[in-house]
Structures are given as C-alpha cells and as structure tokens.
C-alpha cells in the first residue's frame, strides 16, 4: 500500500484539522457568554436566551457549516431546553399550517415532474416559439418564470437545465465565449428567480414568511392577496430582465435550425400525452384555483393536502416516486425557522432588537421598508433565502409592532427581495447550475446581476410606494 506523506508545515496541519471542533467550541462559548451577560433593560431572561440562540443560528446559516435543516433542528431543541418557550408550545409550532402547505406544494410539484407534464409543456413552447434566437431566449426566460409561478423555482431550474444545455451544445455555442449561450443560461436562472417570487409556490420562502407572520401576530396573507401585491413587480422585472439579457449579451447567432431538430427529437422521444399527465394537470389546475378562490375559507394547507391525497386516490403517483422528488429536510428547515421566529417574538427579543437597532434613528415606514428590502436583497446574495427570512423577519415584525406599522408590509419587504438573488452562483441553486454549465462565468453573472439587483430593489420600492396603496396596503 502506498503511503502519502503530508509535507505541509505541522502548524498548518494542526490548524486545519482542529478548525471544525474549534469553531463549534467557540460557538458554544459565545452562546453561553451571551446568555450569562447581565440582562439589559426591557429584555427578559427568555428574550436574552432567544437572542443568543438567534446569534448562533445566524452564524451557522451564514457559514453553512451545518446543513440548513440541521441548524433548524438545533433551534427547535434549544428553545424548550433553555426555557425560551414551553416544550409543548415549541413542538406544536412544528405542525404549523405553513409547513404542511410547503409539504403539499412540493409533493404536487414532484407529481407534475414525475408525470413528465412539465417537460412536455416546456418542449412544446420552445418548439413553437424558438424559431429565432430572440424567440428562443424569450421562450426560455418566460417559461422558467411561468413554471416557477406554479412549482418550486429550483425544481424548474433542474428540469429545464438539461434541455438548455442540449440546445447550447446542438447550436455549437462555445462555452465561456458565446454571448447567446450566456444569455440562454442567464435567462433560465433569472426566469426562475423572478418567477419564483410571484406566488406562494415558487419556493417555500413566502409560505415560511407568511407562517411566521401569522404565528407572531395572528395576521394572515392569503394566496390571492400575495399574488395581487407582487405580480406587477414580477411583470416589470421580467421586462427589465429581458432588456438586461439582450443588452449585456447581444445575440451572436442567426441560424436556429439545429435547435428545432433537438426539440422535434425530444418531443418524439416522450411520445403522446398520457392519462397520467392529463390527470395530474387537472389536479394541479383545480388546486391552484382553489388556493386562489377558496384559500381563505378552507386554508391553503388543507387544500394542498387534499390534492395530495387525490393524487394517490387516482393512482397518479406512488409514495416511492414522491420520495425521489421531495427532500424531507424541508420540513425540519421551515419548522425550525418558524419556531425560532416565534421564540424571538414571544420572548420580546424581536421587539428589543428592533428598538435598539433601526428604531433608534427612524420610525418612518417608507424608510424602514427601503432599509429592510435593501438589507434582504444584499444578504440573500450570500446565503439561503429561507435563512434570510428566518433571520430578518422576526426583527422586522418586532419593529412593526413597536411602531404600529402594518406587519404585512414588512413581511412583503423581506419575503419578496429574499428571492431576488441575481449575482452569484452561491446565491441560489439556479445561478449555481447556470455557472456550472461552463457557458457563463461567475464574472459575467455578477456584472449583469448587480445591475439587475439594484433595479429590482428600486422597482420593488416604487411598487410599494405607488401601487400597494391602490390595493389597500397602506404605510
């Protein structure tokens, strides 16, 4: 057996080997230091402990040293262990309506993917409109966005990526050099990102934010209300996104007949539409219409779960299929985030932080919205968007209650920008997959993404100022 000798300096080896245990030891010490500090005025013991736990979770979510779901589990265990909330209350939070809605929505999306319906729709649209470079670019961009209205944006990115990759290959576009290839992959990522904030279904972050809001204040935002408030912003961002794509990466290709051949071959491969695709499509449409029209009356989680049961009654999926499409860590992540948010709110820690930070120098709602949306859009570039919500929303809700602001406003100001991560591969899986293709570099993505990020922030705030009052959301 060959023995490899590590020739690096011994001090370097020791530092590298001891980094992880030292990190967790330091984190533990920080936690105990924070809970043993003299309690500040206006803060309860429980609140102080909640802040200490919040700090630990913040560090773990930002560094990503533990999987997100495991950090959430740690939060769930620590809350009752240190008496921040009662044991019964803590574990009850885990059964929050939002968690079950997320679960139902992911299962439904899994069924749509498993049936092949989503791929068929994607191919049919690309085949119909992808005859010119501009047509194909718009098809991919709008298709990614439109599908993300109805299913997780990450699932959409995963589904469309192999098709876009094949198109780029088929058109002989040069990785890292072709402008058109860059625009195609960025269209896929941006389409998913922008479309993902339009409804509750684009990602679990919006239901998480709404669940945290309801848990903390009793105020609810329903499916239709959210979509009505956010949809115009999405439309404007799609328009800006299209101009951004074509200005940053002007097309350098004219002949598209090779792409057409790919679509026709792939459509032939998947054959005729079967019973399963029709049936899953009908279940999905009924579910979405019910969420929009009956969500308030029956509860969106109930509708989601009934639809899931319907899928099994109609034998459209097997449990094994669903297990392949859904990562159960999602329940832990979102259950934990809601628990931490509730612990911050109920212990008074959220209001205390809000008071000691932004509250010291502004109470103007428009400024608070602008600041929170700015902070969110920056943070989401470097960390998971769900983690950004878990961190910022409790403070935001605390601030709203402190200054008699409508808590829905702050929820929108955090939930929407949290999904708008345009700049880096680490920001969101859709960006990571685009860069991993090798057709677009991180530098290209950052260059266009920074401009898009600034414009997205401006559009969001302008909509908040001028459009929201028209639909009854007032500062």
């Amino acid at each position, binding site marked *: 057996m060959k023995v490899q000798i590590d020739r690096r300096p011994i001090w370097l080896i020791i530092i590298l080997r001891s980094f992880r245990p030292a990190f967790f030891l330091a984190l533990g010490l920080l936690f105990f230091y924070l809970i043993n500090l003299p309690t500040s005025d206006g803060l309860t013991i429980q609140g102080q402990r909640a802040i200490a736990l919040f700090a630990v979770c913040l560090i773990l979510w930002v560094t990503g040293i533990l999987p997100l779901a495991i950090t959430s589990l740690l939060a769930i265990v620590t809350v009752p262990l240190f008496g921040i909330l009662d044991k019964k209350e803590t574990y009850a939070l885990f059964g929050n309506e939002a968690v079950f809605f997320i679960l139902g929505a992911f299962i439904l999306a899994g069924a749509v993917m498993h049936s092949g319906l989503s791929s068929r729709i994607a191919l049919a649209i690309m085949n119909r409109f992808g005859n010119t470079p501009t047509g194909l670019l718009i098809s991919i961009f709008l298709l990614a966005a439109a599908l993300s209205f109805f299913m997780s944006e990450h699932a959409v990115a995963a589904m469309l990526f192999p098709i876009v990759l094949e198109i780029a290959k088929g058109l002989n576009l040069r990785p890292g050099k072709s402008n058109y290839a860059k625009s195609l992959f960025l269209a896929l990522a941006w389409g998913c990102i922008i479309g993902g904030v339009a409804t509750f279904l684009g990602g679990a972050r919006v239901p998480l934010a709404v669940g945290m809001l309801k848990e903390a204040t009793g105020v609810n935002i329903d499916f239709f209300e959210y979509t009505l408030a956010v949809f115009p912003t999405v439309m404007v961002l799609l328009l800006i996104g299209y101009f951004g794509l074509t200005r940053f990466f002007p097309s350098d290709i004219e002949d598209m007949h090779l792409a057409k051949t790919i679509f026709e071959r792939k459509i032939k491969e998947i054959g005729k539409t079967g019973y399963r695709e029709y049936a899953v499509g009908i279940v999905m449409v009924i579910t979405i219409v019910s969420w929009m029209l009956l969500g308030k009356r029956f509860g969106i989680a109930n509708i989601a779960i009934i639809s899931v049961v319907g899928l099994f009654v109609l034998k459209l999926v097997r449990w094994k299929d669903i297990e392949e499409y859904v990562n159960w860590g999602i329940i832990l992540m979102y259950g934990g985030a809601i628990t931490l948010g509730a612990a911050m709110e109920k212990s008074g820690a959220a209001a205390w932080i809000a008071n000691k930070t932004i509250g010291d120098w502004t109470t103007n709602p428009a400024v608070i919205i602008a600041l929170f949306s700015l902070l969110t859009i920056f943070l989401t570039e470097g960390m998971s968007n769900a983690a950004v919500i878990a961190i910022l929303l409790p403070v935001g809700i605390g601030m709203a209650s402190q200054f008699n602001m409508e808590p829905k406003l702050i929820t929108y100001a955090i939930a929407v920008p949290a999904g708008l991560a345009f700049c880096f591969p680490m920001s969101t899986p859709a960006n990571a*997959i685009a860069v991993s293709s090798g057709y677009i570099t991180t530098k290209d993505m950052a260059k266009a993404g920074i401009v898009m990020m600034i414009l997205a922030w401006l559009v969001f705030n302008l909509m908040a100022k001028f459009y929201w009052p028209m639909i009854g959301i007032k500062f």
Partner: protein
Amino acid sequence: MKNILLILSTSRTSQDAIEYAVTLAKREKAKLVVLYIIETELTNEVFDKFTDIGFIGDKPSTQLTEAIMKEYRQRGYEEMGKVQIRAMEENVDFDAVTTQGDFVEKALEIIERYKIDTAVAVKRKRSVFLKYFSKSMVDELAEKAPCKVEVFEE
C-alpha cells in the same frame, strides 16, 4: 523513449499548452500522454445546493449532475480530439487517458504510471485575493511531482 504528459481538465485548457506539448514531444522524440481530468467538485457542489438549499429530491438532483457530467465528458473528448489531430499532424506518438476526481491526485497517479519526464499543466487565472490565501492546484502538483512541470497560464 521519453514521455511527455499534457494535463487538461474541465476548467484548465489552453491552446498554447497543447501546441507547446506537441512541439516538445516532437523535439524530444517522446510519446505524448494526454490526461483529461473531469473535475467533480463543481457537480458535487451543485448537487449539495439543490438538495440542501433547494430541498429538491435526489432524483432531479442526480439527473442534473448527470447532465453536467455528460457535458464535461463530451468537452473532454473534444479537447482530446484536438490534441490527437495536432499530434498526428506532427507524427507524435499519442496516448490518451480520461479520468474524474481530484486534480493533483489523478495527475500524480498518471505521472507515476507512465514514468513521465515532463508534465505540461494549465493554470487558471486567479484573483489576487485567492493567490494570497491559497495555493493553486497546479503549484501543488509542481511541488509534489517527481518530474519537471511546465506551467501555462490560461
């Protein structure tokens, strides 16, 4: 007979390095071994992102990484094809190896297996920040390799 190794990978290719390796092999009357390493770091990272952050199930994440790996493999074959054509034009004896995994480990393995005299590697452009805080894989290879390593900047 001498052996020259040209090391290319998913993120490290250079026309200048290919030309240099072929010319060197011809001049030294050596055999040219081309190693193409498919780096799995990026695909693993994408898989983790989709499962840990996107909470997507194993099946779509696996299909996704397979699609990327297929693309990387095809690019490898195309790159190897280019070198083979140049080697044939110059009447240079040619051998090709494709593998996937850690860059340094795989390159050292081939250097040892083929008793390489000179290796030609391509170094990626890196920011000043990265250069200061971490060593490049090619520099690490140059340090560990038992043969001479000629380095080309991408």
